[in-house]
């Protein structure tokens, strides 16, 4: 650990790290040892493209990043709360398991790729394929809230989770421009504030109004978003959301035919006890 880089405050519970020019391997090894030594809050200053910040940390520490973290911020992350005062690059929250990422700016492509849990809040826009293949099971349900708008393939292959797009950066426009929204989606849900044309949606996606329970969830998430970025929740919630959901749990079931004869209709005939 490069001691000269780290300044400790409040009996070691707060650490400030000067990351200028540090390789990610060194930076992450500093983070590991700070967390092992019991730091509760770590400030990273001068961050410029270091990858994988927040990975391999197993305590819910608070990490504040000043600058622009590199790709795969919080990949496989399991608990920390990461706040970025700047933009995030590609792969933010990649296969994240638990924890929170808050970005005061933009995020790049595949934000929240294959996330399994935790929450991600992006103040402004995201790149292509945000929320691709997010999953959920039981009480683990990842939530991705995008303040602005998204590029194509938003929520592609979604297998679970909640994706919210607030459209706050659309300006006078109300329509999002992303195409292939939710293509291949087979579970999970997308809530969109603003409009889309039907041709912008994947063919596996249905459109509906959020029900009461979903309105409550939306209010909760929007309020949390507003808390981080100092926006009035009412100014967002006064406009309706649309709900995009998968039409089928098994969209590609009928695509295939068995090679063996007699397989179709077999399962119901065979008694399983």
């Amino acid at each position, binding site marked *: 650990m490069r001691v000269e880089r780290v300044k400790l405050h409040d009996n070691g519970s707060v650490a400030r790290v000067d990351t200028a020019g540090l390789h*990610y*391997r060194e930076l992450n090894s500093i983070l590991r040892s700070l967390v092992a030594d019991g730091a509760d809050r770590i400030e990273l200053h001068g961050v410029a493209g270091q*990858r994988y910040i927040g*990975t*391999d940390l197993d305590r819910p520490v608070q990490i504040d990043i000043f600058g622009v973290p590199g790709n*795969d911020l919080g*990949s*496989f992350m*399991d608990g920390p709360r990461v706040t970025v005062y700047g933009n995030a690059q590609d792969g933010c929250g*990649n*296969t994240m*398991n638990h924890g929170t990422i808050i970005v005061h700016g933009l995020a790049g492509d*595949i934000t929240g*790729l*294959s996330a*399994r849990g935790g929450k991600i809040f992006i103040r402004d826009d995201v790149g292509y394929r945000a929320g*691709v*293949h997010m*999953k*959920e*099971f039981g009480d683990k349900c990842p939530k991705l809230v995008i303040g602005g708008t998204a590029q194509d393939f938003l929520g*592609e*292959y979604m*297998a*679970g989770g909640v994706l919210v797009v607030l459209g706050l950066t659309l300006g006078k426009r109300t329509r999002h421009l992303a195409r292939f929204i939710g293509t*291949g989606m*087979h*579970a999970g849900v997308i809530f969109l504030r603003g409009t889309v044309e*039907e041709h912008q949606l994947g063919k596996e*996606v*249905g*459109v*509906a*109004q959020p029900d009461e329970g979903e309105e409550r969830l939306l209010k909760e998430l929007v309020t949390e978003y507003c808390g981080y970025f100092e926006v009035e929740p009412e100014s967002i919630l006064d406009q309706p959301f*649309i*709900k995009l*959901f998968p*039409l*089928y*749990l*098994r*969209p*590609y*079931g*009928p*695509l*295939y*035919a*068995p*090679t*063996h*004869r*007699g*397989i179709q209709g*077999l*399962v119901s*005939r*065979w008694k*399983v*006890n």
Partner: protein
Amino acid sequence: MTVIKSNAEAGQAQSVAPSSYRYHMPSYLKTRFRVERDDRRCIRCQGCVEQCSFGAQYFDESADRVESIDPNCVGCHRCVVFCPTSAIEIRLNPVEYRDNAHWRPEVIEDITRQAETGGVLITGMGNDKPWTCYWDKLCLNASQVTNPSIDPLREPMELRTYLGSKPDQVEIDPATGRLSTRLAPQVMVETPVLFSAMSYGAVSINVHESLARAATMLGTLFNTGEGGLHPKLYKYGRNTIAQVASGRFGVHPEYLDVARVLEIKIGQGAKPGIGGHLPGEKISAEVATTRMIPTGTDALSPAPQHDIYSIEDLSQLIYALKEATNYTKPVSVKIAAVHNSAAIASGIARAGADIIALDGIRGSTGAAPKIIRDNLGIPIEMAIASVDQRLRSEGIRNRVSLVVAGGFRNSGDVTKAIALGADAVYIGTAALIAMGCTECQACYTGRCAWGITTTDDKLTKRQNPEIAAQRIANLVEAWSHEIKEMLGAMGINAIESLRGNRLHLRGVGLSREEADILGVRLAGE
């Protein structure tokens, strides 16, 4: 926007998308197998009715006779083995079309099936077409007179193999006599035979446990495949390769921590370049928990990994895994053997991988489109030779271990693969055959009568992990003895001395070009 798509008023997903079939039509397909029962031998125990999970047998009470529904038979021979009086025989139903070498019965059947369903034909197991098998055209050397052979029964013989990246050079501290070079993580296996990736979901939990136990007994590794690892198997972590594939099913910090080796799956030999759809029928509650997806959906593995579009991106995921596990485990990258494998392998080595896994055109699968399985990729023999040669000529062969897969049938194939340049071999099908698999290719139905490729609770119980592990371990033990015998015959006492030693191979019936690609001389030269 007020568009509400049909079937969606409730805002909830329906189970299966509607089929495009317009008519229910009679099938023109002929019956493939015929169940022949010797009524004099049959004691009406109905064991076959109980054993057949494909509904091909039933008991007619009024006639007091066991009868068969031949079209349902997949030819798995479960009933034959379990009939206490050997009363049953399964025969190919003679389909005697007019002789035609081009429009073979299989071709006619496939077209008929597609005309009746409009579907992509799906099948299981490996390529069953008569592609050239180069293992059958390579001879191994033996010592005679001028160099003594070694008797492995009485002299030391080493199959121990270390998987992981080796340094370009090592330094030894003269004061202590110890190695001062920091080595990349190495994993030692007692035999160069590993178990190929088969996911929990594609195979049953008992199969996963059998492979894990067998790997532990043998001191080798089993591969989780892309469906995660059931927590009750975490105790076998020291002998586990944890796969990270495009679906990222069951990938979480504990899964990465518990494993010995991590493997990024880019492709597999049975279906290069396409993703996987584990059908909803096989997603039981337990599989859904391990994969972390809702019960009843299909588990869709996208064709590409969406964070990997280049060698640089691959490097990013390799180091993401290394960072996530603090550089304690080797990271493997698995690709299907394809036309440009050598260049791709060079990129993988330079991207920071510790192991490259190569899977050839005969690689097996639980489910794949038949046309993909039978036509995409190249034979593993050619891929091993070209990848090994390319890495050597670039001076980076030491940076990676090469583990190869795709239809290895016996210890002869394994020994030849190592002489051609592999460090170790993955076996999948051979291990399943050891458990009872008869290659009926109905894995994708989830109804495997041998309890292998199923997630049905009742069928799963047909494999007892203790017995199955012993059968698999017996097989690999036997192969290991045979490999030692072959090494001894060649006058070699360690598998390391055979690796990439192509002078011990000679080709028979190969063209000069094929021999050049394989880097071997022809027999007699």
